[in-house]
Every structure is written in C-alpha cells, then in structure tokens.
C-alpha cells in the first residue's frame, strides 16, 4: 500500500465518520414558540428542511405554525402533521399558517410529503 492508497483510505474513513457526525449525531437546537393573544406562534422557514426543526411549546394552548417555503424545490411543497390529520400545500414565498391544539404533552412530528424533511413540536 503506497502513500496515495493510505491517503485515499484514511480520507474515506474520515468521510464516513463525518457523515455519521454531521447528519446523525448533530444536536438541533430547540426554539420556544412565543405567545401572543393566547396563541403560541412561530415562523418556520422551509428551505432544505425546517428552520427551526425543533419547537418547544406549552401543551393545552393553541399553536400556530407559520410556514413559509423559501425554495423552488418541490420536496417541501407539502407539510404534514399526521397526528392532527393536517396537510397543507405550501406555495413558494407564501405564508401558510396552520393551527393545532396540543392537548397533551409529548412530541409531535411534522414532515414533508415524502417524509424527508422532519421537524417536531415538543409540547411540555
């Protein structure tokens, strides 16, 4: 095994380790929704995923997620909140508010139509 081989192999292993760290082990920061007029509201940008993708809210209060798709890719053109049977079409650059009532504490997922973009609501 020559120097090139060693460099290629080590690089390959480093890339694998980096994929695991960057895509799986990365801890996403949670953002807490702000309460206005008795409704907890938060803006969610859809661009290669949801920003923020982890949202803390209080249970027992209505939550309004203002989705805004800021990309042409059709991947994020639909958002689903399966626990509440909600699906919305997100036209590009339009604000689409979705309101739900989180009765019980727990984690509720929202995803894109193909289940590739994922976000969660953490009701406390």
């Amino acid at each position, binding site marked *: 095994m020559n120097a090139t081989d060693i460099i290629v192999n080590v690089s*390959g292993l480093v890339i694998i380790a980096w994929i695991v760290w960057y*895509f799986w082990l990365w801890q996403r920061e949670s953002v807490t929704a702000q309460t206005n007029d008795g409704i907890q509201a938060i803006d969610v940008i859809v661009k290669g995923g949801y920003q923020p993708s982890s949202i803390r809210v209080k249970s027992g209060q209505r939550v309004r997620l203002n989705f805004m798709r800021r990309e*042409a*890719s059709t991947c994020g053109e639909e958002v689903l909140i399966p626990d509440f049977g909600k699906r919305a079409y997100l*036209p590009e650059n339009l604000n*689409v508010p979705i309101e739900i009532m989180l009765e019980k504490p727990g984690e509720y997922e929202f995803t894109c139509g193909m289940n590739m973009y994922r976000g969660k609501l953490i009701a406390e």
Partner: protein
Amino acid sequence: METATLSKTIDPVCGMEVDPTTAAGYSDYEDVRYYFCSPACKQKFDTAPQNYADVSSGHGRGSTGEGIGSRNAVENVFGRSASHHGSGPQIGPDVAESRQASQAMEYRTMMRKFGFAAVIGVLVLLLMLVELIPSLREATMQWHQTIGIVAAILTFPVLAWSGSQFFVGAWNNFRNHNTNMDTLVALGTGAAWLYSTLVAVAPGLFPAGTAGMYFDVAVIVIALIVLGQALELRAKGRSSAAIQKLLELQAKTARVIRQGKEIDIPVEEVIVGDTVLVRPGEKIAVDGVILEGESAIDESVVTGESVPVDKKPGDTVIGASMNKTGAFTFRAMRVGKDTALARIVEMVQQAQNSKPPIGRLVDVISSYFVPSVMIVAVITFLAWFNFGPAPALNFAIVTMVAVLVIACPCALGLATPISLMVGVGKAAEHGVLIRNGEALETASRLATIVLDKTGTITKGRPELTDVLSLPTFSANELLNLAAIADKRSEHPLALAIVQGARTRGIKMEEPESFNAIPGHGVEAMVDKKRVLVGNRKLMQRENIVMAAFEADASRLADEGKTPMFVAVDNQPAGIIAVADTIKDDSVKAVRALQRMGIEVVMITGDNERTAQAIARQAGIERVLAEVLPEEKAHEIKNLQVARGSEQASNGRGMTFVGMVGDGINDAPALAQADVGFAIGTGADVAIEAADVTLVGGSLHGVVYAIEISRGTLRNIKQNLFGAFIYNVVGIPIAAGALYPLFGMLLSPIIAGAAMAASSITVVTNANRLRSFEPQPVEKASA
C-alpha cells in the same frame, strides 16, 4: 352602502353569528358594513380590516402570519381555511386551482429541462462513443483532451440549469444537517462531472488507464431523473382526484328569496335561515329543511346510493345533491364548512393525511436512509479502489456514482401515503368515510363483526306484516277496524298498523271514542262496535278467550314478529302482526361478510326468541340477545378477549372485532370495538365515536369498507415491498456485487433510469386503486 348580509351576519373577527340589531358595533370597510359581537372584535378589525374583511362574504382568509411574509395563503391544498373562526369560507377550489396551475407550469419547466438535458446527453454520448471505438479513438487521439474540454463545457449548463434543483436542494439540506434525494443525485452527478472535468483538464494527474470521462453519465442521469419527477408530478395529481371530484359537486350559485324577491347569489353568500328555491334538475346549494313542495332527490353525492329519495316538507336536504323531479323551497340550516359535504371533505382529507401503523417502520428507515447510502457509496469506492481490477480508480468512481443514483428514498416515502390517499378517497365516493389510516388498517384485519339488530340489520321501525281474521271478518275489514281504533294512539306498534292500513289503501275514519290502556293496548268505539287491540294481557283482562289464535300467535312470535290480538264486541276477531323487518340488502351483506371469512354476530336488547328469528332471516348464527345498551361495550370486550386467547392458543388468525351500530345509542360499543362502524343517514355524517361512517345507511357499506381497506392495505404492502426490494437489490448490484461472479457492472445511466422508474411505479400502483370496484354483493354471496 352594502351591508355584509341582510338578516343575521357573521362577526368577521371571531366568526360568531351576530344580529345587526343587537350587535356591539359595526365598521364600514370598502363599502361593506361589518357587525361585531363585542367591542374587542371591533377594535381588532379596525386595526387591520384587510385581514378580516372578506371573511363574512365567504371568501375567508387564513389567520395572519406574523412577521414572516407579505402574503397569506389558506391552509389547505383543497381550499380549507386556516382560520379557526367559526365563519369558515366555502370549500372553494381556489387553492387547488392555483396549485394545479403551478404544477402544470412546473411540469412544463421540467419537460424543458429534460429536453435540454436529453439533447446534450445524446451529443455527449456520441462524443464519448468516439472514445470507446478503438479505430476512432486512435484517429482522434490528439483531440482527446479537446473532446473532453468540449464535453465539459457542453454539459455544464445541463448541471447548472436542468439539474439546478438537485444542487440547490442538496445545499439547502446540507446546511440544515439534512439529506434527501437531491443530496444523492447532486453527489452522484457532481462527482461524475468533476472527476471527468479534472481528467479532461489535467490528464497527467491520473495513472495510465484511469483517465475515463463520464460526462454522458452525469447529463443522462439528470435527464432521466428530471423526466421521472415530471411524470411523478402528473401521476400524483391524479391520486387526489376523488376529493377534487367531491369539491366539484358543489353548487356554484343558489336562488334565494330575500325580501320577497328571487335573487341568484354565489353559494358562499347563502346564510343560515335563507329560503332557497330549487327547480327540477338543479343542484341543492346547502343543507336545509324543505318548507314547501315535494321532490325526488339524488343524494348519491354523499350517500353513494344512486336511487333518488322522495322528500316532502319537513325532510332534510343535503347540499350538492341533485333535485330530480319537483320544485321546492327549503330553509338553509347549515352553510359553508358546516355542510355535510364540507364535513365529509374535511374528514376524508384528515384520513388521507394520517399515518397507518404500517407506515411507521418506513419513517424510521427513511430518516437513516440517505446518509446510509452515502456511507455505502464511500465503502463501495474504497472496496473497488483497494481490491478492484485495473483501472481500479475508474471502477471505484463508476460504482460509487451508480450507488448514489440508484438509491431511491422517495419510493419508500411515497409508498404508504399515496395509496392511503387514493383508497380513502375511493371509499368516500361510495359513501364510506374512514376516519384515519389506523382504522383502515384495522378494518382490513377484522375477524369478527358485531351487528346491532335494530336499525342496522332491520329497518329500525315496526311494519305491518300479517293480518289473520276469523271468517266473520275479511282481512281488510279487520285491519280497518284495528287501524281506526289505533288512529289516535302514539305507540309505535299502533303507528305501524295505521301506516300499514294506509299503504293498503284503506281509508280510516275517526273513532267515536278512544282509550289507551298503558301496557295493554287500546279500546275504541268504531262504527258503534267496541274494538280492542292489544296484547294477551288485554284479552285476559277483558276475559276474552283467544284459544283459536294461540298457535298462530306462537308461530308469529317465533318469526320475530309481535302479534296483537283484536276483539270486536268482546268476541275474538283476529290477529295482526307487526315486526321490525330486515332491510332488503342485509341478508346479502351478511353473506358477503361471511364469505370474506368474517364471523358475523348479532347483538340486541330484544328477547332471545325475536332475536333468533331475525338472525335466522339474516343468516346469522351467533346471537347475543337481551343485552342492555350499556352492556354492549362489555360484550364487545368479551369477544375481543375470546379472540385474543384463541389467537394465543393457536398462534394464528386475526383478533380484531368490529361493531356496526348507530352512532349515538351504540357509541360506547363502537368506541370499545377495534373498528366502530356508524350507520348514518344522509346529512348525519362524521360521527365522533366511529372509525368508519357509513353515510348511506346500508350494511353493504361495511362490506365495501372492509374490501377497500383490504385492497388499500394490499396496495401499500406491494408498494413497500417494491420499494424495499428495489433498494435492497439495486444498491448491491450498483455497488458491483455481481461483478465477481458474472463480470457484470451496472452503468450509472441504467441506475438513474431505475431510480426514476421506481417512484413512478409506486405512484402508478397506487393509482390502480382508483379503478377498485367492490365485488358485487350478489356475486360475493353466490
């Protein structure tokens, strides 16, 4: 100045109904006057009238977003408003139309991108072929580097335009620590192009024999995947066709009578309390109650049953159903999002968007999928680089690119939701409303169905069945006397006799006197004769011996009928029997269920004898009789436990128990059952306790619900199996697993084509469900 409405109006802020004469205030905006229920609502409105102004006129707005963007969209793809206010807009198809328009535009753009990539792809493929044919290769040896640079320049616009969405998407994802299909396509085609460009620009960097160029791979893979996405877009549009069809059934305008004048207004502007005029052949605008006139109405839009129903004053009519014969007026009772059709659409949408348990495994897999494929691609590269034959670097590049582009997370992600969407929509077309994916999955695995007797198997109201008289009276004479005697009674059995006489064309006068004897029957003077109609106790009380009818009475009771004795002037005269008869289609439906391998059980509060008689007629062997309403849930639980232990002992079979009953009285039993089927009629939809609502009220709905559930689940399984197998087999083949045995290597071009085909296959398979038709019950019961 135009007022928002003429009588009652809707507070545009909170959605409450407001009477203008008692409103807390009003505001004028754009020549329209709006009334408010409270000063707070008025204040809110005044600060931003544009956010609320068109709500009450039915064009509703979503709640305003805060600080995120300049424009608002309603929440739902089908036009359901995001507003939580009570004053929802009509389920207008505006948003659906705008989506269709944007999808059509996107389709055209994609096809243009595909066309461009395909033309360049073919050109570059020809250039690359020059490299492959030895004689041409030698002749063009000195042009080798130039050909490479030309190919790099030609293909760059393909990546930059036709494939731009993959690279932008991949970058956006990357910044979010996310991956998706874009990541794989961008990595695969990007790696192929970069490597090839490097080879073209600086061939000296590479060992002899490894300087291959893969420009053709990069552009043709992009062309194929763009084509695949365009076709998928088309097919996906069709999968939501059922709900579109429902929406299109709405009436567009209504003719209302206001202040004595007939005016045509958009259906959105009809308010509760309006008098609406409907002529033959017109659609009914909203839900209401007939005031004047009679007609036959085709309610198949909500009930799935195409036989028109006769309606008279006092009967309810359902919005979007078709008036066939007569003209009538009705009072609007439910408008906008409260109408039966709107609630059906909402329920169907919710079900389509839920997730059946079978889809949960897929969630876990898809969240790990893309990074796993990236890791497999790196491992593939290293394996070929270290152990592959010469030129190892070329093999390593080709196989790595093939792995990246063959993997298809979309097929997995689409498999469940797309079938669910088609299946639930299809069921709704037949008047079967399935609440969610879980209900659908459980319904497909039912082992036992418990049918409530009254109103489910039977019509739920007693009807006259037999008239047996002594030779002294004809049957019609006896019935005439009994019907007149019963005419003033409100007892259901008496009503059945009166109705039966009417149906037989018997004209009834008023009795000369009438006396109801609770728990016994009635006593009346008819044509100067003393007529007694009642049970055995009445005859015993009056010392009338009915020995001649004992055998008949016993036989009638065995048939599940209620015999009523008739005596005239203290002499026995005959027997009239009344029974809650079974619905015309119950027998066939029960047989169809049994043929599907489902055990059918009847549950009722009636006595054993009546219950057995009805069960015999319906073809049901197992009967749970004399069960009080509050005990029904307990009986369901017992059946579930019994099924569970049966399965535990033999390790196979299905355990789920379904219950069919009316949504109100049987609510606890419906909730206890694994799947509760509520039999509704007409406008009575979206029953809370039920997992499945049968709008049409026929037991056929249960058969259909189970058939479509089984069909949909089968379709989901096929999709999941296809998507799993595709990836599980495709990825190793792309990595070169067949090379050691057969010397076979998959071209990344084929891999890209396979990837494009896999999602189209899933969507197409789901769309097959659209042509799903239930087995005709006659055939099933043959």
